[in-house]
């Protein structure tokens, strides 16, 4: 009798989500693997690295360290302070600032850098201020554009703390300030660490801002090795140093976040109502970073755009940017959703490809691009060999390669939000719909999609914004004569033609801001999605 405990074991293909998840893992990790192999076995330009090591490499390394430390310190200060303010106090405008404070994530650091450098040059309107350049200038720009990672995570941590934590310290005789410093802040430490790891990784991946401000980091080194010396293997060797740092930061971030999660449930917020003076100060504290990250540089660029001859190819590059970002976002969301499903239904084994795919985020754009070039080089070589001659150039320098590199880096960004979106659907709903006779497809469209579509949309939008902002991978892999807004803005800016750079930069931010606003509002909603 087969009444109890029969479970049909299917020997057919694994379900679609698992296949897609494995594919995502491959896309994410193959380039990283290729970079590693290339770094070990590839033949570089003769003596390039040795020459570099005795000349610029120490500078790259020192700049990287200084920029990362400055960025982290600034973002910690801004992000933690604002996180506490929003989580623990009540003042007019608080609920708007709650999400608006995440908007600077729509601002590419290099565009903020163009604006700020120009503002603070001796001849600029803010010439009286110290000129924003060098490692501290880059660190400052990163702090202003990346603090939202710290803000979002610490705000969440403060909301998760038992509401009475600070009150318990008060009742034990501590002053308000001492209660915050000895209790609230240390209890939020894992979240702060996780946020800072994200800030450092983004800063590490940047190319446009550090080169514009004259603080070349290791990422700049990768691009120069490839474009200047034409040596992919040397680029890969430098890339390995970056990936090492990034993996270290990822580990830190994961550890911090899992500890922050274990800290407890979200609670009904116990917020102190601020008095009028306090409210004004709080609103100012929230306005300042937004004004500095978005307002000031955008205003300066708008002024330039108004006074300069427009660049000719703004429509083309806009269209290119939008379509690349949209296609990548769609694919990343599909990968993310598949991975989330694999995790939900596939058990432990399915978790392996998903966790592997998450590694892709440790690949800065430049590294991903080098990896993709290496992978495609091998494939092309294989095709040439099979054809017995030069097979038509299929892969390198095509949009396919570009989307491949974007997915390596950003598919991971879509997995997290999709996972949280699906996690909101209790398994009992699945069982209920199964008992009601719904098959997997009907279950998806009628039950899962309506409940999770918001989170999946947010996942796509995150990737959309990231691809719009992406510069180094695009520079390495874009087909000849194919420009995106980011590339156009960068090229003009590096020719010191800020007037022509301003319009594409403004269009880019104008496209990214609404998408980021949707993401930000979801990121602070009670049942929020997670940015990474």
């Amino acid at each position, binding site marked *: 009798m087969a009444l109890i405990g029969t479970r049909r074991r299917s020997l057919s293909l694994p379900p679609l989500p698992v296949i897609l998840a494995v594919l995502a893992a491959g896309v994410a990790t193959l380039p990283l693997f290729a970079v590693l192999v290339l770094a070990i076995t590839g033949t570089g330009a003769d003596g390039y690295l040795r020459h570099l090591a005795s000349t610029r490499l120490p500078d790259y390394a020192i700049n990287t360290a200084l920029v990362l430390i400055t960025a982290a310190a600034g973002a910690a200060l801004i992000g933690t302070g604002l996180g506490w303010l929003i989580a623990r106090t009540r003042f007019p405008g608080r609920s708007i600032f709650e999400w608006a404070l995440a908007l600077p994530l729509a601002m590419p650091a290099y565009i903020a850098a163009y604006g700020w450098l120009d503002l603070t040059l001796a001849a600029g309107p803010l010439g009286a201020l110290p000129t924003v350049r060098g490692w501290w200038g880059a660190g400052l720009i990163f702090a202003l554009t990346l603090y939202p990672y710290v803000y979002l995570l610490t705000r969440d941590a403060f909301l998760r703390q038992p509401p009475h934590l600070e*009150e318990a310290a008060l009742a034990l*005789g501590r002053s308000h300030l001492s209660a915050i410093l000895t209790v609230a802040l240390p209890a939020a430490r894992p979240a702060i660490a996780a946020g800072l790891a994200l800030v450092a990784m983004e800063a590490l991946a940047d190319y446009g801002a550090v080169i514009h401000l004259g603080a070349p980091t290791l990422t700049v080194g990768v691009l120069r090795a490839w474009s200047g010396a034409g040596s992919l293997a040397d680029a890969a060797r430098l890339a390995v140093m970056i990936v090492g740092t990034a993996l270290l930061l990822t580990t830190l971030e994961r550890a911090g976040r899992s500890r922050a999660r274990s*800290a407890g449930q979200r609670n009904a917020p116990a917020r102190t109502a601020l008095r009028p003076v306090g409210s004004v100060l709080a609103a100012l504290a929230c306005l300042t970073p937004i004004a500095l990250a978005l307002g000031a540089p955008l205003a300066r660029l708008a002024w330039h755009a108004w006074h300069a001859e427009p660049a000719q190819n703004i429509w083309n590059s806009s269209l290119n940017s939008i379509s690349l970002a949209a296609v990548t976002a769609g694919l990343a969301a599909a990968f993310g959703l598949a991975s989330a499903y694999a995790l939900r239904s596939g058990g432990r084994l399915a978790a392996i490809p998903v966790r592997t795919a998450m590694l892709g985020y440790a690949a800065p754009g430049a590294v991903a691009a080098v990896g993709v070039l290496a992978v495609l080089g091998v494939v092309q070589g294989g095709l040439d060999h099979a054809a017995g001659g030069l097979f038509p150039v299929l892969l390198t320098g095509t949009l396919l390669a570009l989307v491949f590199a974007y997915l390596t880096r950003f598919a991971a960004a879509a997995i997290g939000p999709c996972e949280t979106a699906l996690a909101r659907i209790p398994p009992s709903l699945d069982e209920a719909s199964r008992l009601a006779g719904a098959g997997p497809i009907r279950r998806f469209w009628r039950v899962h999609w309506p409940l999770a579509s918001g989170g999946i949309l947010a996942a796509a939008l995150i990737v959309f914004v990231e691809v719009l902002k992406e510069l180094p991978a695009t520079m390495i892999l874009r087909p000849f004569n194919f420009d995106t807004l980011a590339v156009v803005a960068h090229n003009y800016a590096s020719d010191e033609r800020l007037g022509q750079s301003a319009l594409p930069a403004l269009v880019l931010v104008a496209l990214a801001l609404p998408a980021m606003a949707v993401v930000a509002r979801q990121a602070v909603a009670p049942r929020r999605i997670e940015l990474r």
Partner: protein
Amino acid sequence: MTAPLLTVRDARFLRGKREILRGIDLDLPEGGVAALLGPSGSGKTTLLRAIAGLERLDGGEIATPGMPLDGPGTWVPANRRGFGLVFQDGALFPHMTALRNVAFGLTQLPREARRDEAMIWLDRVGLAHRANAYPHELSGGEQQRIALARALAPKPKLVLLDEPFSSLDRALRAELRHRTTQLLAASGISALLVTHDAEEAMEMAATIALMQDGRILQSGTPETLYAAPETRAAALLLGSANVWSGTVKAGRIETPVGTFAAPEFQDGETAHLIVRPESLRVEADGTFTTVQRAFRGGLVDLVTIAPDGSEWRASVSPEMFPESERAGLSASPSDVVIVRD
């Protein structure tokens, strides 16, 4: 009788336009446990937070002998009131070990002594062996014991307990109640317990104040409150009760369980008769119909319907349990209370 440890006079508190506290008067005696008992939303936790100094009153005063704490032009913040406080969820500092949590409030002592004193308190709550555990490694009951030790260690004159046991399961709750009562008695620290659990209030407290809708309905010893409630609401807060409403005729009120003198009532006035289920006498035969029986170990709960259609609950011992569907219920005058509200 010594002077009260703490007095509250005409305390008022608004949240937006809602009146949370509507004129509370309260005297906390020195020594022993007092309880604020009321349903959720009655304002009892707000009153406790006002006493702790975590909320400021919109009217009225809070004072200790010789020291006003809250009132017009007076405000002593929580950190200078020196009261202990235990929250419902414990509110242990998650980044500190049990030992450091308990030592947190002992700022007056030098470093070494702080540690020793904290160990003594951990020992008193039976958790010396968990000194180096972090809160997330402790069970719910252990966390509450640490929270109690942390609140008592600085030796406050008064410790405020905000539903400290309500997140624990029943057996654990009983054990922790017992332990807490002993600890408070041994250390001579007075306590104010806020709870919605009548059993808990009656077991732990020497005096109880019944709260509802931001007012204190009645206060007194558990025995008085149980046997002589002044209102229907007060009676129901302390446990299950039969309430029957009728009109007084010639100084008497006629009910299905007997006719009782109501000397303080005018003719034609509405009066409410209150009688506890265990005070009703049940006979095997009579005019009541039994519609439900529930065996509860030592007692059997009956639900019966009187000839006039009113419902009466009675608790009887199993040997007195009438087999038939018919039953006779009556009450003696000493077991009933007749009230206006």
